[in-house]
C-alpha cells in the first residue's frame, strides 16, 4: 500500500539498524513519547534491531492512559443517566473507572455510542433534540482541533442539548515535567509526529535548549522510528541538543495554523491532572468562558472528587518511563486487557497492553531459538 509498505521495508530497516550500530558508542536512553510509536516498536520488534547500548522507554503519550480516574468516573455517571446519549471514541469504553466501565454502563441500559469524530456527536445532538448528547473529549493536540470544531459548530447551530466532558492534554508541558523530575533518565525524545502535524515543532526549541535534550519529531512506521532513533543517537554522540524533523512528509515547522487558531478560540490552557503522574501546570485544555454552556461537568453539576488508584498498579512509573510493564508484580497474571488494573493495560496504545499482546516471552523464545 502506498505510504505504508515503503516504510516497512525489511532491507532498508536492516540498513538503518546497521548504521545505528556504527553510530552508537555509548549507552543512551531515549523516550518515544507517543503510545502509537510504542505499539509499532513492540509490534514490529524494532527494539530487537537496536544496539544493546540503546534503551527505549515508553512515554506518557497515550490519551486513554493519562485520563484521570475521576474523569472516567464522571463519564460513567453521565453515561448512566437515562436522558443522555454518551458518545465516545471506541477505546475509552473499556477503561475502568473506580467501580465499572462504559461497556458495563451500556450493558445496564446506558446509551453509549462509539463515534469516529466529535462532529458525529454534534450530528447526533441535532438528530435527537429530546436527548442530551455528551461527547467525551479526550486526547492530545491531535484530536483537540476536531473537538474544538464540534464545539464551534454546535454553537453556530445553537444546539442546547450538546455538551462535552473535556480531558484534553498537551504534550510539551508533560515532556518538561518529565525532564524536571529528579528521577529522570531520559536523554533524548522522539516527539509524537501526529501531535506535530497540528502544532508544528516550534514549541520544542525552548525545551531542547533548557534541558539540553535532543528532540526528533518522528513518524509511526518502522523506518520512521529507526531513522528517528538514528538522528537522536547522532545528536547524543556529538553532544548536540537540537530539534529535528524526521517526519517531514507530514509535519511542517509551523504546523496547521488553522487548527491551532480553532483550538485557541475554543479552549484555554489550564493545569491538568495526568493519571499516574499527577497535576502538571499548563498541560490541559478547558472550554473558554464563552463556551461554558457546552461543559458537561457544569451542565450535570458533577462533583469533583479525588479517587485513589489501585495500590498494586504501577502505571504511573510506567508512564514516566521508570519501570517496564513486565517489571510489575501483577502484569499478565491478575492484570490483563480483560481485567485491567490500570489504563496502560486497557488502551490499544498503552505500554502494558503492547507488552501483553505482543511480548509475554523473550523474543528469542518466540523465534524458537534455543
Amino acid at each position, binding site marked *: 500500500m502506498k505510504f505504508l509498505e515503503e516504510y*516497512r521495508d525489511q532491507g532498508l530497516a536492516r540498513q538503518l539498524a546497521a548504521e545505528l550500530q556504527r553510530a552508537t558508542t555509548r549507552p543512551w536512553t531515549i523516550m518515544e513519547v507517543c503510545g*502509537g510509536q510504542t505499539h509499532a516498536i513492540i509490534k*514490529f520488534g524494532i527494539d530487537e534491531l537496536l544496539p544493546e547500548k540503546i534503551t527505549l522507554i515508553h512515554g506518557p503519550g497515550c490519551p*486513554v492512559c493519562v485520563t484521570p480516574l475521576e474523569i472516567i468516573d464522571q463519564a460513567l455517571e453521565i453515561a448512566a443517566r437515562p436522558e443522555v446519549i454518551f458518545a465516545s471514541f471506541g477505546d475509552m469504553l473499556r477503561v475502568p473507572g473506580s467501580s465499572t466501565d462504559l461497556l458495563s454502563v451500556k450493558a445496564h441500559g446506558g446509551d453509549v455510542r*462509539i463515534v469516529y469524530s466529535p462532529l458525529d456527536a454534534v450530528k447526533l445532538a441535532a438528530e435527537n433534540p429530546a436527548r442530551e448528547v455528551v461527547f467525551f473529549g479526550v486526547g492530545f493536540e491531535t484530536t483537540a482541533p476536531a473537538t474544538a470544531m464540534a464545539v464551534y459548530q454546535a454553537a453556530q447551530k445553537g444546539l442546547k442539548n450538546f455538551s462535552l466532558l473535556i480531558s484534553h492534554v498537551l504534550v510539551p508541558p508533560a515532556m518538561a515535567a518529565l525532564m524536571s523530575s529528579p528521577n529522570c533518565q531520559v536523554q533524548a525524545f522522539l516527539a509524537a509526529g501526529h501531535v506535530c502535524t497540528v502544532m508544528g515543532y516550534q514549541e520544542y526549541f525552548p525545551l531542547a535548549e533548557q534541558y539540553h535534550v535532543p528532540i526528533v519529531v518522528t513518524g509511526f512506521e518502522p523506518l520512521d522510528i529507526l531513522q528517528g532513533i538514528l538522528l537522536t543517537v547522532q545528536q547524543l554522540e556529538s553532544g548536540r541538543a537540537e530539534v529535528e524533523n524526521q517526519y517531514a512528509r507530514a509535519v511542517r515547522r509551523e504546523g496547521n495554523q488553522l487548527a491551532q487558531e480553532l483550538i485557541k478560540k475554543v479552549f484555554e490552557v489550564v493545569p491538568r491532572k495526568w493519571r499516574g503522574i499527577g497535576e502538571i501546570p499548563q498541560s490541559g485544555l478547558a472550554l473558554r468562558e464563552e463556551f461554558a454552556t457546552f461543559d458537561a461537568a457544569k451542565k450535570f453539576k458533577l462533583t469533583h472528587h479525588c479517587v485513589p488508584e489501585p495500590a498494586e498498579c504501577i502505571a504511573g512509573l510506567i508512564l514516566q518511563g521508570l519501570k517496564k510493564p513486565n517489571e510489575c508484580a501483577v502484569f499478565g497474571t491478575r492484570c490483563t486487557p*480483560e481485567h485491567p488494573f490500570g489504563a496502560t493495560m486497557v488502551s490499544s*496504545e498503552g505500554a502494558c497492553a503492547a507488552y501483553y499482546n505482543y511480548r509475554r516471552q523473550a523474543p528469542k523464545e518466540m523465534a524458537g531459538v534455543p
Partner: protein
Amino acid sequence: MNATDFAATCPLPISRYPNILMAHGGGGKLMHRLIEDFFGRAFSNPILDTRHDSAQFTVPPGRLAMTTDSYVVRPIFFPGGDIGSMAVHGTVNDLAMSGARPLYLTSAFIIEEGLPMATLWRVVCSMRDAAEKCGVQIITGDTKVVDTGKGDGLFINTTGLGVMEHPQNISPLAVQPGDRILISGDLGRHGMAIMAVREGLQFECTIESDSAPVAGPVLDLIKAGIEIHCLRDLTRGGLASALNEIAEAARVKITIDQKDIPIREDVQAACELLGMDPVHVANEGRFLAVVPAKAAPQALEILQRHPVSTRATIIGEVSERSMPLVTIKSVLGSHRILDMPSGEQLPRIC
C-alpha cells in the same frame, strides 16, 4: 430490489400488509399465509412440502455432523451479502469444518413487528439462492413475531445436518508438530465491510464481505485423499482466535509469517485507519486447514483451483509440542505473540 420488483414477485398482497404484524406469528390465517406463501414457496422441497411438525428423512450412511448458529448481523443487508445468505453460509461452513457434506438446514425466524414485508421477502429469496448454491435443503422451520422494540428487525437461527463420507478424524487434537497451516484466501473483508456500513465510514471504494460457502474446497481436499488434521472457519476473532484455539487444544506452538497472509489493500487501509489488525477481524468465507507438511503443496493446489479459495496460501507451521503459543514473524523479521483479541474490537482515538 426496488418496490416494483417486489410487487411483481412478492406472493403476499403488499397493499394490505406492507409490514409484519403481531398476527403474522399468532398461529392464525396470517401466519399460515406467511409460512405458505413466503417460506413454503421459496424453500420448497419434498421434505418441507409434507408440512409435518417435524421433518422426516432417511439418515444416509456415515457419521453425521450437526451444528447450530444464530445470525443477528446489523445491517441486515451489507455489501457482499445479507443476513439470509450468511445464515446459510455460516452453518454450512461449520459443517464443512468437520469435513461433512452439508445436507439439510432448519431455519427459525424471529421477526420484529413492523419489519417491511419486502425486506423479509428479499432475505428469504437470498436464503433460497444460497441454499441452492450450497446444495442443501431447508426442511423445517419456525416463525415468531416479537413486539416493536423487542427485536432488532430480524434474527435467524439455522441448524445444519451433514454427513461425513470419510473416516478421517478432523480435530485440533489431531494437530502434529511439523504440520503446515493453510488459509483459504485474503482476510478481514467481512468485518471491515460491516463496520464501514454500520458506522457510516466512507472509503473511496466499497469493501465487500467475503461471505461464501466453503464446503466445496473442503470436499475437494477430502476427495483427493488429503490427510486433514484440522479445519477451522475464521469467523469472529479472525485468524488470531482460530490459531490460538487450535494451539490450546493441541498443546502446541504455532508460528506464522505476516508476509504470507493475503490482505487486500482496501481492507489493510481501513484497518490502519481504525487501529485494527486484519488477523483479528471476522471473515465469513475463509477457513484454515492444518495438514501434514508432505500434503501441503497438493492441498494448496486443490484450494487454489476452487473459485472461493483461489488466493489460498501456506502461512506457517506447527513447530513443537509446548505450552500453547502462537507467534507471528513481522515484516521486519522479528517475532511477536499473536493473541486473541480482547473482547470487542474498538476503534482507537488517534
